[in-house]
C-alpha cells in the first residue's frame, strides 16, 4: 500500500488555493458549529490545520436502487470550486457516475480500491437494496446488490448510507414495495453505519461525517436510528424561518393565495416540518439562501422520515407535540363558569314547587286536624264497641 498524501499536500499539488480551502472549512463550521469534534475549535484555521494533516480518505461509493440525486447534491454547489474542492479533499476511488471507466475497467477499479485501502476506506452507499426474489431486481456485474454490498462493506472501516433510500429504503420501498427494497442497516452488521436520510440530504452532512471520521478518528454522535445528531437532532419546525408566522397564527391556505405570497407558514398546507428531523431549515441547499422547499413555498414532505414521506398525504397536516406559545396573552382575570338555561329552569322549577307546596299545605292544617280528631274518635268508638 502506497502512502497516501495528506490533504494539505494534495491540495497544494492540485493547485487549489488556500483561500478556497479555508472557505470550505468555514462552511463546515457553519454546518456543525458544535456537533462535531472537528468543528468544535476556536478558529477556522485550527480546523484547516486538522484537516490538512489528515491523509486523504479513500471513499468508495456504491449505487443501488437510486436516482443519483445524492451524488448530484454533492456536486450541485453554487460555486464550481467547492465541488472540485470536495473531490480534492476526499479521494473518491470508485463512483459509477463520476468515474471515467466502465465495464471491466470499472470492476477492476473497485477491486484495486478495496485492496489498496482495505480496512480503511469509507463506504458510501446510495440507493436501496432489493431483497425480493433473491435480489434479482438490481444487479451489478450479474451479482445481486446485496452480495455486492456485503463484499464491499466487509472491508470498509465505516459505512455511510446517504439518502433516504440507503437509510431506510426510500422511494423504492414505498407501498407496495414490489422489489422488497430495504436500507443498508437491515443488511450490514458489525460495522459502524451512519444514516444520512434526506431526498437528497445536504452534502455538508456527508462532508462533515467523513471528515470527522478521518480527522478525529471517530464517528459523530448518532441518534437511535443512526443519524448524526449535529444534523438530525432537531425538527425542521424548531428552526424554521417561518416559525414566527406559525406562532402568530398566520398560515397560507393554498398555492398563490395572499398568505402564500407573503411567505406565511405552510403548516395548514400539510408541511411536515414539525415531525421531520433534518437541518434544512438552517442549512439551505446550493449555498443559496432560501434554496429549500419551504423557502420556495412548498410544504416540507418529511423526506428524511420513514413514517412520514410516502406514508402521509402531501397536504395532510401533522399533529404538533411541542409546546409553543402563541402571540396572544390571557388577561389577569378570565371568565369561568356560568349558568345554562336548563339548570336555571330546573332550579326555578324546584324552588317553585317547594314554595307552592308550602303555601298549599300550610292552608290545610285546620281541616287536617279536624279529620284526624274524627278518625281517632271513630277508632275509639269502635274499640269500645268491641269490648262490649
Amino acid at each position, binding site marked *: 500500500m502506497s502512502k497516501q498524501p495528506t490533504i494539505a499536500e494534495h491540495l497544494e499539488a492540485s493547485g487549489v488555493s488556500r483561500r478556497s480551502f479555508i472557505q470550505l472549512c468555514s462552511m463546515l463550521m457553519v454546518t456543525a458549529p458544535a456537533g462535531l469534534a472537528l468543528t468544535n475549535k476556536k478558529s477556522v484555521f485550527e480546523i484547516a490545520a486538522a484537516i490538512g494533516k489528515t491523509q486523504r480518505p479513500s471513499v468508495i461509493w456504491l449505487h443501488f436502487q437510486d436516482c443519483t440525486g445524492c451524488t448530484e447534491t454533492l456536486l450541485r454547489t453554487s460555486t464550481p470550486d467547492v465541488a472540485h474542492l470536495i473531490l480534492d479533499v476526499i479521494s473518491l476511488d470508485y463512483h459509477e457516475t463520476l468515474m471515467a471507466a466502465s465495464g471491466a475497467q470499472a470492476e477492476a477499479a473497485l477491486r484495486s480500491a478495496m485492496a489498496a485501502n482495505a480496512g480503511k476506506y469509507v463506504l458510501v452507499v446510495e440507493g436501496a437494496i432489493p431483497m425480493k426474489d433473491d435480489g434479482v431486481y438490481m444487479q451489478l456485474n450479474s451479482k445481486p446488490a446485496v452480495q455486492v454490498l456485503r463484499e464491499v462493506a466487509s472491508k470498509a472501516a465505516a459505512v455511510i448510507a446517504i439518502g433516504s433510500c440507503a437509510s431506510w429504503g426510500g422511494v423504492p420501498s414505498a407501498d407496495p414495495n414490489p422489489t422488497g427494497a430495504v436500507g443498508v442497516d437491515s443488511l450490514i452488521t458489525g460495522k459502524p453505519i451512519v444514516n444520512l436520510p434526506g431526498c437528497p440530504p445536504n452534502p455538508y452532512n456527508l462532508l462533515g461525517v467523513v471528515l470527522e471520521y478521518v480527522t478525529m478518528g471517530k464517528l459523530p454522535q448518532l441518534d437511535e436510528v443512526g443519524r448524526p445528531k449535529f444534523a438530525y437532532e432537531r425538527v425542521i419546525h424548531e428552526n424554521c424561518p417561518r416559525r414566527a408566522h406559525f406562532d402568530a397564527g398566520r398560515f397560507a391556505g393554498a398555492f398563490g393565495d395572499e398568505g402564500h405570497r407573503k411567505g406565511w407558514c405552510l403548516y395548514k398546507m400539510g408541511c411536515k416540518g414539525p415531525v421531520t428531523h433534518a437541518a434544512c431549515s438552517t442549512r439551505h441547499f446550493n449555498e443559496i439562501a432560501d434554496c429549500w422547499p419551504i423557502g420556495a413555498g412548498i410544504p416540507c414532505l418529511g423526506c428524511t422520515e420513514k413514517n412520514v414521506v410516502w406514508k402521509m398525504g402531501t397536504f395532510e397536516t401533522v399533529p404538533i407535540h411541542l409546546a409553543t406559545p402563541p402571540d396572544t396573552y390571557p388577561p389577569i382575570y378570565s371568565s*369561568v363558569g356560568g349558568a345554562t338555561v336548563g*339548570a336555571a329552569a330546573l332550579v326555578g322549577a324546584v324552588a317553585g314547587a317547594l314554595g307552592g307546596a308550602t303555601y298549599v299545605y300550610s292552608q290545610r292544617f285546620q281541616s287536617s286536624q279536624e279529620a284526624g280528631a274524627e278518625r281517632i274518635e271513630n*277508632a275509639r268508638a269502635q274499640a269500645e264497641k268491641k269490648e262490649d
Partner: protein
Amino acid sequence: MSTATLTNPPGIFPPAPNQNRWERAVPVYGVSVFNKFFFLLVGLAILSGFLTIYREAVGLGPASGMNDKFGWGIWKTFNVVVLTAWGSGAFAVGIAAWVFGRKRLHTLMRMALLTSMLAYACGLCLLGVDVGRPWNFYWVLFPWNWNVHSPMAEVAICMSVYASIPLALENIPPILERLWHFDVRLQPVVEKLEHALHKFFPFIVALAYLLPGMHQSSLGALMLLGGQRVHPLWQTPFLPLLYVGAASFMSFGCVAGVTMLCCLVWKRPIDRDVLEEAARITAWIIFAWLVIRNLDLLFRGALFTAFHPTEYALIFWIETFLIGYGGWLLLQSLKDRKLRTMFLGYTLSSVGGMLYRFSPTTLAYMPGPKATYFPSVIELLIAIGFASTGIAIFLVMVKLFAILPAPVQEWHNMALYFRARGPYSNWTKYFNFGFFGDTEPTESD
C-alpha cells in the same frame, strides 16, 4: 307526664284531658305512603344513581358546573353544609331535651334522630361522590396523619364518626322496639341490646352532642380560610358560632316542621303544647342569633355594606328578612294559636338559615371578578336525587317503625294493623297477638 291513676285493665283508655297529647311514637298506619309522590322520589333517586355512575366514569368536570375558581359545588355547599345543618335535629332538639331538660321535646326525639340520620347519611354519601380521590379516605383511620388544624379534616372525620357511631346507635331503639313486638323469640336478645344501649346511653348521647357542635361549627370555619374572598357581610371570626346557631334554629324548623307536615298529610293529631315549646325555643335562638350577627357586623364595620346597591346586600336582606320574619311568625303563632303561622314561621326561618349557611360558600364567595358558578343539570339532578332518597327512606321508616309522635290512643288503634302478619304467623306460629303485654293468643287466632 302521667295522667290520673287508671283502674281500667289495659285495653280501653278514657280520653286524656288533652286529646291530642303526644305520648308515644306510632308508625303511620291505615294510609299507604307508597303513593305517586313516593314513586316520584324513587324515580329521582334511581336517576341520580345512574348519573352518579356517569360522574364516576367521566370525572367531575362534565358531570358538574364546578370550575377552577369555584372548586366546590352544591354537593358540598348545599347537601353537606346546608342540608346536614337543617337535619341536625338530633343535636339541637336533643340538647334542648336532654341537657336543658325540656321534657316535652322528648316526644320529638325520634323524629329528630331519624331526620338527622337521613340528612347525614345522604349528605355524606354525596360527599363521597363529590371528592375526587375517595380511595384515599382510609387515612381517616390513622389519627397521627390527621392535620388537626384543618377545618376540613375536622368536618370529614367528625361527621363520619358521628353518623356512623352515636347517631346510628341512637336510631336503633325504634328498630329494636319493632323486633320486640314482632316475634316473641327475639325478645331476650332485644332486651339485652336495649339494656346495653341504656347503660351507655349518656356516653353515646353526650358524644352525639359534642360532635355535631364541633363539626357544624367547623363547617363555618371552612370558609374562614376564604379570607377576603368571602364578602365582609359574612366573613367574620364568629363564623363557626353563627353556623352552629343557624344549624340550631334550622333543625328545630326541620323537626317541628316536618312533624307538622306529616301530621297534616296523614291526618294525625298535633300536640300544640310540644310545638309551642319548640316554637318558643326556636324564636329565642333566632333572635339571639340575629343580635349576635348584626352586632358582629356593626363592630367589624361591615354593616354599611348592607346598604350598598349590590347583589350581596340584597342577599343579606333577604336572609335577614326570612330569618327575622320567620322568628316573628313563630312568636305570633303562640298568640294566635294558628298552626299555619307556626308552620310558615319554621319554613321561612329554615330557608333563611339555609341561605345564610349557603352564602359564604357560593353566593358571597368572590374568587375573581369574572368567575361565576352555577350548577349543571346533572349536578342538580344528583343533588335532588340524593335528597329524594333521604325523603323516600324517611317515608318507609315512619311507616315501618314508631317514629312519629301521637296520642297513646293511636298506638292501640295501630295494633289492629300491626297484627296483619298472616304468612309469617302461619309459618312460625310465633307471634305476639292482642294488646301488647299479652302472651296468649286470643280466640280469633
